[in-house]
């Protein structure tokens, strides 16, 4: 079996900044990322949505690159840039022709050193973020379903259960003092990893990291709130109104095992057995065979990218002629069958081949036109959560070693009503007749 082994340099600067360099000279392109170990899970209470709003503020200006300069410098170098806020990390990344590498490092260092933003910038980005929430959630059929709907039902710890995109009142309450306090607390080099992937030599990459980032002073180790959940003892259910869509929907989330355990590997393959596209049991049973549902898919989202409680989620849109309880019963029979009979050796082998193939694609895949995003994301998370970027070369082994009995055992242990939450998203209006 052909295996991809990724060669890398991994070092930590004196100020605590971790640095990962992955040379690849196949194209004159380089992708740079800076990941900070703070996401929306641990944003301040009373400031829901703040980690994401803050991410926007990081594009609003730093000491030597005022507003518009950051974007302008990257685009005019022939590059693309973006940022995204996740549960436990926030990233900033750029892909550029490799002749612009130093410029990108300079920009990332400048904003790690000193964010320089004013009230006008904050007002502007608060408006932009509200339109983002409207376009993705409030003005879309099934917007935010289920990623914003399930957590408040499933979890009891505010960290896991709040509105990650932000209540507008909380966004309005956020001020410049919050911005600078958050920056000072979490955006310190000792809470971050710098990644450079592509057209650069390993030692050159490390030397450039030194050159641009070494003089940024370390901060105090950031405090992290406890995100553990109290033990769940009963099934939890919730209701949400669907304003635009006309099909009833439901989502079922089972809390997943702790990451990097044997159970977690088995759960990942079990997830594939249930949700692997048209071959997955959920789609096959609910959409293809019983024809109760129009959509039935899901999984553990970004399985390598979180560091706290998470769920394996099934998202179902079903036909109005089937009741929610009937649909849930059909869902339960798929789960029950797995618990009772497990899976065959043949199915397990299929799942493993597909998992391996998908893993390679993750390593190679880009995002938004930026190559190597997938590999960067895994390296960053393994560095910040495990201090082991090299896990990209061995994490696959655990999944390929999963046994049939383990899949069935995990199905019994985790796919229990007392370990799940169910949210029903119910349309407020019925379908209207089309034009003649």
């Amino acid at each position, binding site marked *: *079996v052909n295996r991809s082994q990724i060669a890398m340099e991994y070092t930590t600067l004196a100020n605590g900044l971790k640095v990962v360099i992955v040379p690849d000279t*196949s*194209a*004159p*392109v380089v992708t740079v990322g800076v990941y900070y170990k703070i996401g929306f899970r641990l944003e301040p209470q009373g400031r829901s949505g703040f980690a994401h709003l803050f991410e926007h503020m990081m594009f609003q200006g730093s000491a*030597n*690159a005022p*507003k*518009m300069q950051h*974007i*302008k410098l990257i*685009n*005019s170098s*022939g*590059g*693309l*840039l973006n940022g995204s806020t996740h549960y436990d990390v926030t990233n900033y990344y750029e*892909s550029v*022709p*490799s*002749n*612009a*590498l*130093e*410029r990108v490092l*300079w920009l990332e260092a*400048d904003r790690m*050193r*000193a*964010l320089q*933003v004013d009230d006008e910038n904050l007002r*502007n980005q608060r*408006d*932009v973020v509200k*339109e983002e929430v*409207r*376009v993705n959630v409030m*003005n879309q059929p099934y917007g935010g379903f289920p990623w914003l709907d399930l957590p408040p039902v499933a979890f009891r710890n505010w960290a896991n259960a709040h509105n990650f995109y932000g209540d507008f009142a909380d966004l309005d309450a956020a001020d410049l003092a919050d911005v600078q306090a958050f920056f000072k607390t979490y955006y310190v080099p000792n809470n971050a990893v710098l990644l450079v992937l592509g057209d650069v030599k390993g030692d050159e990459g490390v030397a450039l990291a030194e050159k641009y980032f070494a*003089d940024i*002073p370390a901060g105090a180790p950031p405090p992290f709130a406890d995100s553990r959940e109290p033990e769940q003892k009963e099934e939890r259910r919730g209701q949400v109104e669907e*304003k635009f*869509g006309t*099909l009833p929907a439901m989502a079922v989330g089972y809390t997943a095992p702790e990451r990097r355990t044997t159970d977690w590997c088995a759960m990942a393959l079990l997830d594939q057995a249930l949700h692997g596209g048209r*071959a997955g049991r959920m789609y*096959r049973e609910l959409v293809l065979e019983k*024809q109760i549902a*129009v959509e039935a898919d899901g999984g553990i989202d970004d399985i390598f990218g979180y560091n706290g409680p998470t769920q394996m989620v099934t998202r179902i*849109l079903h*036909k109005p002629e089937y009741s929610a309880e009937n649909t849930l019963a059909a869902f339960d029979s798929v789960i029950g069958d797995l618990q009772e009979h497990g899976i065959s050796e043949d199915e397990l082998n299929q799942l493993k*081949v597909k998992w*391996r*193939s998908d893993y*390679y*694609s993750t*390593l190679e895949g*880009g995002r938004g036109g930026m*190559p190597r995003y997938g590999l960067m994301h895994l390296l960053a998370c393994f560095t910040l959560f495990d201090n082991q970027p090299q896990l990209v070369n061995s994490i696959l082994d655990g999944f390929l070693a999963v046994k049939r009995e383990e899949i069935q055992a995990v199905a019994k242990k985790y796919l229990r009503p007392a370990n799940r939450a169910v949210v029903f998203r119910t349309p407020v209006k019925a379908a*209207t*007749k*089309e034009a003649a």
Partner: protein
Amino acid sequence: MATRTAPSPTVVPGLSPERPVTWPKCTKTRLSNGLEVILAESQAIPKFHGQLSFRSGNAAVVDRGPGLAEMTATVVRTGTKLRVSRQIEEDLRRIGADLSSSAGADTTGIGFAGLSELAEPLLGLVNELAREAAFPEPEFERERRQKLEEVKLDRTQPGFLASERLRKVLFGEHPYATVAPTESQVAAYKRGDLTQFYREFYTPENALLVMVGDFDSSTMLKSIEKVFDGWTGKKPAPHPTPSPAQPKGRRVYLVHVPGAVQTQILAGCHAITRNHADWVKLGLTNSLYGGAFNSRLVMNIREDKGYTYSPRSAVNALRQHGYFSVSAAVRNDVVAASLTEIFYEIDRLRSLPVPEPELADARNYLSGIFSMGLATQDGLLSQLATVALNDLPDDYLETYREKVRALTPADLLATARKYLRSANMQIVVVGDRTKIEDQAKLFGDLEIYDAQGNKL
């Protein structure tokens, strides 16, 4: 402001000399049955991506039934003479492969990706789908019912409603006017319509096979010849359609969605196709206007005014007729203000030459992101397929960056005047009429529709 005390370099580092792009090893050939094949090697992972395209899509048969090519492509994967639906899906998983089958206005495509070590079984399945699809009656019925739910869902999405209305307005009687079938059109599909489309258009003379990935091209070519051996079929007869009349004068179309908390703006006018001599010029003009983060429109209505999260403009390259469009989902109370800025930025590009430094930035941008688009297997695949499907010159990719770099402020001014036809832009707004009607009608004669397409 949280300034830390360490000294900071205040000068932006310059650009070092550019490294040349190394072009992947690329093989182009045509099999004796007429199938055009393009192979490019890219060894980043032990996988490959492929696409078998047919140069016919929904527009070719709109008179027989809108969306018929898409429905055909959907049912193609549900059964062959040798395998039932479930076996197809499990076989794909067994070889670690992904497969999609769909159709747009101009092209039908079977896209696939899989492990290099299992390339031949995947090619074998693609071959079966292209030649021996069985269109099982129950699968057809199920997919049709599924499609009925999808077209209903589409009508609840602002983005869909906007593009549907704009295409109707721009293309009138032309097949491009239809982006999706209605419920009754779906209900009228017959299995025989699908098999007829399949026989007529799924032929090697009408096909293009592009593969990019970790393989040896000469070995892969032998596999392809073996797998697709004996497949025959003619190029379908051309299906000429009269050019659509281009709408004159600004008009506004409001699609009323009661309770909408935001307004989707989409405005557009006719432009050019990808093989037009001005394509690169218009691409650069678009990138300056609203095609990049650093563009004038984004800087204006997002970064300065905060009206919207995601403004953008695009040149949409349908094969027979292209069109230029600009879109933004904006706050309900700034619909008129946003349209004012959208037209201000268009008119500015039409009135004043772009300053040379700004143009240089835009040239660098377009040329740089082009190289990045080639750096993944599926990125390269999509570029190679675009060149072949649009009959672009063989050296199109290799010379693209030079063409971008040669453009001057005078070129851009002429291009903006010629194609960003501000006075003829058709404006669609999707939102709650009680919140936006008064603003919308400031920009031209107003027609109002509901989400089902009924004129109100």
